[in-house]
């Protein structure tokens, strides 16, 4: 999936617009029918994102169900992001990047140590941001809810031989992705602070978030 599709939505009509600095988190209930746009302001910024059925957090985004049912490992326009019940939470309705990852997971202190060595243990990491957001949100969200995530704007190519790589991003300043909520959906975002691989171009940067109501 590398089809590009621009959006006709007018930022002036968005009812919410904010900038999320690198290393920060954001939690938001997206009502059915509303649309979230994530703008990669400076290019090559991974935006780690979790989705939950707002009325049943146990029914959350499932990467494996999503890629199996769409028959492809990458996400793009037309991808329906399925929950464990097999029904979509949100769908990608516009995209000027062309490819998004959902197999690379979110960085953590522990995975950083495995991948890069002990000296990275105390670097900031997405799963710490997610835990902080979950604790702040409350309502029973905890570590068990940190399962599959999407890495918007991140490029993790898989090869027919069974290999996987973290490659330079294919995003660029100003590129964006838009998600329409198929039902009431809780969104958790960690704007990735990873400094040890090319997912953020070694320079994590802010993203802009806009929300339009469905009406």
């Amino acid at each position, binding site marked *: *999936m*590398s089809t590009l599709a621009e959006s006709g939505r007018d930022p002036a009509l968005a009812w919410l617009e904010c900038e999320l600095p690198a290393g920060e988190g954001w939690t938001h209930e997206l009502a059915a029918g509303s649309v979230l746009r994530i703008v990669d302001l400076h290019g090559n910024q991974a935006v780690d994102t979790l989705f939950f059925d707002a009325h049943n*957090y*146990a*029914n959350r985004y*499932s*990467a*494996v*169900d999503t*890629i*199996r049912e769409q*028959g*492809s*490992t*990458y996400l793009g326009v037309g991808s329906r992001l399925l929950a*464990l*019940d*097999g029904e979509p939470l949100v769908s990608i309705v516009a995209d000027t990047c062309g490819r998004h990852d959902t*197999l*690379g*997971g*979110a960085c*953590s*202190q*522990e*995975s950083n*140590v*495995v*991948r890069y*060595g*002990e000296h990275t243990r105390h670097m900031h990491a997405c799963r710490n941001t997610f835990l902080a957001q979950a604790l702040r949100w409350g309502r029973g969200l905890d*570590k*068990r*809810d*940190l*399962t*599959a995530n999407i890495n918007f704007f991140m490029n*993790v190519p*898989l*090869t*027919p031989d*069974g*290999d*996987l*790589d*973290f490659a330079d991003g294919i995003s660029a300043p100003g590129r964006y992705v838009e998600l329409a909520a198929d039902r009431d959906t809780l969104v958790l975002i960690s704007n990735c602070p990873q400094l040890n691989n090319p997912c953020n171009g070694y320079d994590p940067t802010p993203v802009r978030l806009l929300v339009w109501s469905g009406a």
Partner: protein
Amino acid sequence: MHAAVDVPKLDLTLPGGGSLARVCRRASALTLVDLEGGANVAALLYLAKNPLERYCMPDTLKAQHVSRLTSGVALYSDMGRVLASIVHDSCGWHDTITGHTTPALLAARWGPRSYQQARNECRRSARELLLIELAKHGLGPRDLIANINFFTKVAIGADGELSYVREHSPPAASVTLRFELDTLVVLASTPHPLDPDEQWRPRPVGLVIEHAAQAAEDDPVRRACPENERGFAASEATLL
């Protein structure tokens, strides 16, 4: 550390459509045998003493730069430790990115069949079986994670397109896990959701559980990459 005990080898058969949850101890090995060929075994792994720590597909793949599982690959927890290593594999490719059957999928693809209709030939999806086994250990839907599909290959094309590979696993194909930490293993022997077979034909799987030597300094899985050396060290550090 566990004292050496003289327990005989366990040799079990998991019938097609069956499920099982069992704690496999550090320094034991579990061999799965595809008795008839064409089996699929959905598998979940949790650290036995704290199931909040569990198999992590993304961490496993990115630590080792792989998108499939085979011999030489370590199975990582989400806390940076190696739960188990694949020390033998005659199959070459086991899937971990395409999930398992749900009741809705089974009904749509193969049609439901109740116990009342079919007695123990009734059809139950991997989702139902895994959740029942998890519930026996106090775990639930929030503990569902991306599973392994032993004996299944879903090939990945140049643009990420998926295609199920038929007859990937021949009769007597086998794969062996050596456990680096005490691990709760949950298995369901049900067809893969992309299996094109018009018949619902779950296959039986042999399970052999036996003692295994702990990973030596020059163990090929430990030495496969610097990441694995750190992952093994993290597992061993919990034994202090």
